[in-house]
């Protein structure tokens, strides 16, 4: 009753004693304990997860107390895995456990914010009687007014605003841009839909409806392994984490499992209890090294040399010295090793040419459909060349033969493809292979066994198998007289372990043993050898070589598609499982097709004018045997060619407003799409209309409006950050050189004065004020991951997760779906008067997984502009599609499922099906729109949960009926019955409220190459091997050889070792920079930017808890001895600088880091504890302030089977890891925090002093 009175029981205080009086028993009051109990008491628990692309996809309990999120905890109610397998839970790491801090943190954006100077201008114009669009026009057409706000981007100056006015400005800006420049001048950037797919879809749906371009991210982040589409025709498909446990031999290379795959790392560790050997490859003593049996400290950027050496061992011991039966059967059936290659004469020797095709033979070997796209093997049964089933030619235009059964396409007789003709060769000839290792010959000459063959044309050709080429290229001696390596210790023959030791620094014995064990294990277990790989090897310029060297090893050993085997690539690769249900909503395919997509790497390379500064000469990247029709072209020029030939997409498309192009065409008499297309073809041929990229710095080709949501474009992924600031944003920047290299461009018009501040309006939608927001004009507050309904999936496990609304969006924030709805509504109102209904022209590149991928046969490059062929849209150039834009109905379209889902149905990966039933069911499930207008009677998409259910309803992964329809469609193509894969779950439908109750395992869908089953774990390529579904490649098999002309020109027909590319930013320093560094002690180091535990793309290192624990702001790591050599001590201020810019941080000195590199973890921003750089005179930068993006021409190839563009699927990737920086110490006294007022002088000085253009 009373604490005080209770204490007065003096004589009864001790009830008894024990331990000889050392302990006493009392009945003291214990109510005080309730305080601690109350700390964990709560009002409700809501399931949610974190929409961040760590790929964790962990289920969390969000505890709500007094209307606020109090804390979160791991959910542990996952459906269990099968017997003898560890379970998935507990999932969730420290990142997730600390997220609730953000909801009420100082970083939280509480209200709409707007750049004060901009809104003043706008209000003034409106006060003078102008309507919103006219007001915006008045600002944009006056360069002085415009500059007033664009030049102070990044310098603060935000004021609180309201939703009404902000949506009005955004809508007005969009409308003005559409009218004046064209809808393709509006761009949206948002990454990784899988992490919160409805939020992604919100922005992309709005943009797609108004004709804006959605930018890719996977390729831009350089997380897309270009090798995957090259080798398998597959964007990325990887095993679930649980399958690591099934492996018996793991090589982990460049993926820091405990750090970046925290909730899944246990599977790798547990596999060791299972007898699995784990080998780690990392240049530094990374966390994952600790639980490996062997550490191979490989020099950064040389991984492919190490894997080639292991491939050498495996190939020699299991294919040459003996023929392992499993390996032989696997490579024969599932790889292109038996495919026949034509050799081309090159002086007195030969080089490898293109694949032999059915069309090369008399009467096309009986193939009437696509004979140019059917590759040929030599059949050991009939001793004749035959066309086997499964090549891409069988995929389109006929049915039932697109499969990997060992059958002849002509008569479906059983065949057995021969791997090598070494025992029945007609001749042995010398073949040249390009070679790139420094200080070695640029050409390797090898003797190859060949057959002679008379083609239909009458010419005699020499042909050989990919296998024979590949064995020779690996440097394995077969007694053919070219004296290759007979011993692993022969260090003069490339790709022997001894040679690799020279290149990689890894001991030859380790490479030899690992190669042998990896193969032996695969032989013993039928493919249960696995390589887990990641960003650290994928972010290099020649990342496709690094990855292909691993894929080669895996294919040699028959591992791909086997549970516990294959590749496991984990870099921002989150799997958008219900993709087929999501895409129509996300890109407005239910109302208009096609959408406008753009590959961001190309986009930013040009629009941030990084092409003007390019120091890498494309000619230097060519192989020694190149024919190189485009010799002398710059890297950027290749991209111009690529767009022109219909390979890569473009945005903006042309130097004219696409709405005007249609108007002009119609004025000239065009009545339909074909007419408009014809008109444009003539315009392009005559040069009256040109691709925008040909004069990229002309004002009509600028991007004008940029939306960034769910992303941190500038503060994180902007490779070439300072170029973004300088040219795109027009802000204070640290670019330390003049851009002059672009002057020599062959394809792009050079303008002496580089553009500054291309964007009229930059909008950031976020819950957190990051570096991107700091440079934006408008910031809109969005709901956090605990404040909205959304969906989340990952490839680390097979479950679908909800993001749940634990509390209402705090302050004035709204969910992304509601934000874009609000913008769409305003846009619709204002466009009534300004836009009306118009026709838009979309320029579409040749798409992967469509018949357009058969556009340009034989991999020959024919350029219509050079007169090598006619300009035929969709064949030799992009396809031109006319899309009607009913602008005033944008809101109605946004909020309902459109009629094209009934008219055209749905499709994924080239499989089509009807969706009438699903739409009918959606009408009942979600209700229909009752307002008059075009959306009346259509299923509603007003509420977030309804959108989630729409996605789930239309996807085969979450709707058994759709799985049935899509698999049935695929069975028709393959001629194989796949129904057993989904049969047991045909009736199942997974709804939003189901996944709120418990994570649900998805249904096997033809979208993916693995299966959900109670027998095996999900593994990539499983259905290719076990269901005989061809890989989506030219040959239908996994590729060792790529025969496209550019692939061969750049020396990458076969995989080879390519050393890191010299990017030149740290050499021949510009005079301004050299002056600043004069007299300073410096180190020149490779700039390594791995994923950090606490900051990945859109996750954050500025969490107060982490800042308190470690250094309080950005830092980078140096080797102990190297740091000492220039007098740097731990925690000193240091600067990393090169011609691209500078970044200032604290330094961490560690023995963990090898010499020659500096490690700065990803996504450390400049919003906390970043002083000015004395070199640039500007704020000290981010990790990407010293990088510049660089593109690879081979990634621009299109219109050629698997080498065809698709969004985030193929295209240029934004590599940055080959970069070098100069590091020096900054004395504490010299640290300048730049806290002075914004003076007119400072405002005018956008560039570092001395830099002009």
């Amino acid at each position: 009753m009373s604490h005080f009175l209770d204490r007065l029981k003096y004589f009864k205080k001790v009830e008894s004693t024990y331990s000889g009086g050392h302990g006493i028993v009392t009945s003291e009051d214990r109510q005080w304990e309730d305080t601690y109990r109350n700390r964990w008491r709560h009002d409700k628990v809501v399931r949610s997860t974190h929409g961040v692309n760590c790929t964790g996809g962990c289920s969390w309990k969000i505890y709500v107390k007094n209307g606020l999120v109090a804390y979160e905890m791991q959910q542990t109610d996952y459906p269990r895995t099968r017997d003898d397998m560890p379970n998935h839970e507990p999932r969730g790491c420290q990142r997730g456990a600390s997220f609730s801090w953000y909801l009420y943190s100082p970083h939280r954006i509480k209200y709409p914010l707007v750049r004060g100077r901009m809104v003043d201008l706008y209000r003034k114009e409106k006060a003078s009687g102008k309507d919103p669009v006219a007001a915006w026009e008045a600002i944009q057409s006056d360069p002085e007014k415009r500059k007033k706000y664009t030049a102070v981007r990044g310098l603060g100056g935000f004021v609180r605003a309201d939703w009404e006015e902000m949506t009005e400005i955004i809508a007005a800006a969009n409308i003005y841009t559409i009218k004046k420049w064209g809808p393709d001048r509006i761009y949206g950037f948002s990454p990784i839909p899988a992490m919160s797919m409805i939020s992604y879809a919100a922005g992309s749906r709005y943009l797609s409806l108004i004709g804006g371009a959605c930018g890719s991210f996977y390729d831009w982040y350089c997380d897309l392994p270009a090798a995957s589409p090259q080798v398998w025709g597959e964007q990325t498909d990887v095993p679930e984490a649980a399958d690591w446990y099934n492996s018996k031999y793991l090589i982990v290379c460049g993926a820091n499992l405990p750090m970046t795959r925290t909730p899944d790392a246990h599977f790798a560790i547990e596999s060791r209890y299972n007898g699995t050997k784990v080998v780690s490859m990392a240049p530094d003593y990374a966390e994952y090294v600790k639980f490996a049996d062997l550490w191979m400290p490989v020099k950064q950027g040389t991984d492919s040399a190490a894997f080639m050496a292991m491939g050498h061992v495996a190939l020699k011991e299991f294919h040459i010295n003996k023929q392992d039966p499993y390996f032989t059967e696997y490579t024969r059936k599932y790889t292109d090793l038996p495919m026949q290659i034509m050799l081309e004469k090159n002086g007195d020797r030969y080089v490898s040419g293109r694949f032999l095709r059915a069309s090369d033979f008399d009467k096309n070997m009986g193939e009437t459909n696509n004979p140019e796209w059917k590759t040929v093997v030599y059949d050991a049964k009939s001793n004749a060349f035959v066309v086997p089933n499964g090549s891409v030619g069988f995929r389109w235009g006929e049915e039932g033969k697109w499969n990997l059964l060992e059958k002849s396409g002509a008569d479906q007789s059983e065949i057995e493809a021969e791997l090598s003709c070494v025992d029945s060769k007609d001749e042995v000839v010398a073949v040249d292979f390009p070679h790139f290792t420094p200080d070695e010959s640029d050409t390797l000459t090898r003797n190859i066994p060949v057959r002679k063959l008379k083609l239909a044309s009458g010419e005699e050709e020499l042909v050989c198998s990919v296998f024979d080429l590949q064995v020779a290229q690996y440097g394995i001696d077969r007694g053919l007289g070219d004296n290759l390596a007979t011993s692993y210790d022969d260090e003069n023959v490339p790709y022997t372990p001894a040679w690799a030791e020279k290149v990689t620094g890894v001991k030859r014995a380790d490479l030899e043993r690992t190669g042998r064990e990896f193969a032996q294990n695969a032989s013993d277990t039928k493919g249960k050898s696995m390589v887990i790989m990641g960003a650290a090897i994928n972010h290099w310029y020649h990342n496709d070589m690094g990855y292909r060297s691993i894929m080669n090893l895996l294919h040699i050993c028959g591992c791909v598609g086997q549970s516990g085997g294959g590749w496991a690539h984990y870099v921002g690769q989150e799997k958008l499982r219900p993709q087929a249900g999501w895409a129509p909503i996300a890109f407005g395919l239910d109302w208009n097709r096609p959408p406008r997509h753009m590959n961001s790497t190309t986009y930013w390379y040009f629009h941030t004018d990084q092409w003007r500064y390019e120091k890498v000469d494309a000619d230097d990247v060519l192989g020694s045997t190149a024919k190189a029709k485009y010799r002398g072209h710059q890297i950027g020029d290749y991209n111009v060619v690529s767009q022109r030939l219909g390979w890569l997409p473009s945005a903006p498309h042309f130097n004219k407003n696409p709405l005007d192009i249609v108007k002009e065409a119609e004025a000239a008499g065009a009545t339909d799409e074909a007419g408009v297309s014809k008109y444009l073809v003539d315009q392009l041929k005559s040069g009256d209309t040109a691709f925008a990229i040909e004069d990229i710095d002309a004002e009509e080709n600028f991007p004008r409006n940029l939306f960034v949501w769910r992303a941190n474009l500038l503060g994180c992924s902007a490779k070439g950050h300072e170029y973004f600031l300088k040219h795109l944003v027009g802000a204070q920047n640290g670019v330390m050189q003049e851009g002059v290299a672009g002057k020599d461009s062959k394809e792009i018009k050079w303008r002496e004065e580089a553009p500054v501040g291309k964007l009229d309006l930059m909008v950031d939608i976020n819950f957190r004020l990051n570096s991107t927001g700091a440079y934006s004009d408008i910031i809109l507050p969005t709901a956090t991951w605990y404040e909205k309904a959304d969906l989340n999936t990952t490839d680390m496990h097979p479950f679908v997760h909800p993001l749940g609304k634990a509390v209402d969006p705090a302050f004035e924030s709204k969910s992304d779906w509601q934000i874009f709805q609000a913008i769409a509504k305003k846009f619709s109102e204002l466009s009534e008067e300004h836009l009306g209904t118009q026709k838009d022209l979309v320029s579409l590149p040749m798409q992967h997984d469509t018949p357009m991928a058969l556009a340009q046969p034989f991999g020959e490059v024919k350029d219509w502009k050079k007169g090598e062929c006619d300009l035929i849209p969709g064949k030799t150039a992009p396809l031109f599609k006319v899309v009607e834009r009913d602008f005033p109905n944008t809101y109605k379209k946004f909020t309902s499922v459109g009629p094209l889902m009934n008219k055209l149905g749905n499709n994924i990966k080239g499989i089509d099906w009807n969706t009438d039933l699903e739409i009918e069911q959606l009408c009942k499930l979600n209700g229909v729109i009752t307002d008059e207008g075009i959306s009346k009677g259509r299923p509603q998409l007003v509420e977030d949960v309804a959108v989630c259910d729409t996605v789930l309803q239309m996807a085969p992964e979450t709707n058994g009926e759709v799985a049935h329809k899509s698999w049935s469609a695929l069975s028709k193509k393959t001629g194989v019955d796949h129904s057993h894969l989904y049969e047991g779950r045909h009736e199942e439908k997974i709804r939003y409220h189901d996944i709120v109750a418990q994570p649900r395992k998805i249904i096997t869908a033809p979208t993916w190459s693995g299966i959900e089953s109670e027998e095996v774990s999900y593994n990539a390529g499983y259905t290719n091997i076990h269901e005989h579904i061809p890989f989506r490649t030219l040959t239908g098999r996994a590729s060792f050889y790529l025969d496209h002309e550019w692939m061969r020109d750049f020396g990458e027909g076969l995989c080879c070792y390519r050393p890191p590319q010299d990017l030149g930013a740290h050499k021949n320093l510009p005079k301004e920079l050299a002056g600043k560094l004069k007299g300073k002690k410096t180190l020149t180091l490779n700039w390594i930017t791995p994923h950090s535990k606490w900051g990945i793309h859109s996750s954050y290192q500025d969490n107060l808890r982490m800042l308190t624990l470690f250094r309080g702001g950005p830092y980078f790591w140096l080797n102990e001895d190297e740091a000492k050599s220039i007098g740097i001590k731990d925690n000193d201020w240091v600067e990393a600088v090169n011609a691209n810019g500078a970044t200032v941080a604290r330094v961490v000195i560690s023995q963990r880091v090898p010499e020659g590199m500096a490690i700065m973890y990803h996504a450390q921003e400049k919003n906390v504890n970043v002083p000015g750089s004395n070199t640039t005179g500007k704020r000290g930068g981010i990790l990407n302030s010293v990088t510049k993006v660089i593109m690879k021409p081979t990634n621009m190839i299109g219109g050629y089977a698997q080498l065809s563009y698709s969004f985030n699927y193929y295209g240029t990737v934004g590599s940055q890891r080959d970069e070098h920086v100069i590091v020096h110490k900054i004395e504490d006294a010299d640290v300048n925090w730049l806290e002075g007022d914004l003076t007119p002088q400072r405002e005018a000085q956008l560039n570092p002093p001395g830099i002009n253009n």
Partner: protein
Amino acid sequence: MSLHDLVFGAYPYLAGAIFLLGSWIRFDREQYTWKADSSQLLSNKNMRLASNLFHVGILGIFFGHAGGMLLPHSWFLAMGISDVGHQYIAIYAGGIFGVMCLIGAAMLVYRRVTNVRVKAVSRNRDTFVIAWLLATVALGLSTLLVSTGHAAHGDVSEMIALTEYVKSIATLSVDPSLLKDVSPIFKTHMFFGMTVFLIFPFTRLVHVWSVPVTYLTRAYQIVRVKRIRMN
């Protein structure tokens, strides 16, 4: 009732009652406010000196006052301490502890109003209570001017009057008239001193109650029995 009677007749009981009841109520109702509210974690600068001076000083003063005023007169005589001797002890001991307390309190006041971190967490009552104690001890020291004069002349009447008055409060037979001839400086000091008791339950001073002397005799282990309450 005259002001004199009010202050020295009623006020001691008012202050005493609030002191006792207030402490009780706070102890029962606001257990989590029952603490010293130390700000030493925020700033430790000079605290070794300031805090120790203050605490040693004020404890010395407290026990000096209690012993000197409340022990029966006869006990001192029995110990062979004459009244003049008693007074000298009070003057020297009070002077030494008083000066210690004064310096400590002054440093703490200074710290509380100038140190930004401490200032940021200070509530009005925190600043008030240390300032009040400083004023009280300053007044107490200034009484030495009077009492040293008395002692030099062997005049112990005022000291006897004061001790008798304090005893009269303690025995619930307060007699304000005992203070009729006492110097105003003593009366002011006494008013300040009694007010310390008045404000005591509303401030961090409550930590005084919880001085952990029982730790000296505490068992090594204590098991607190869990009783299920059916409320």
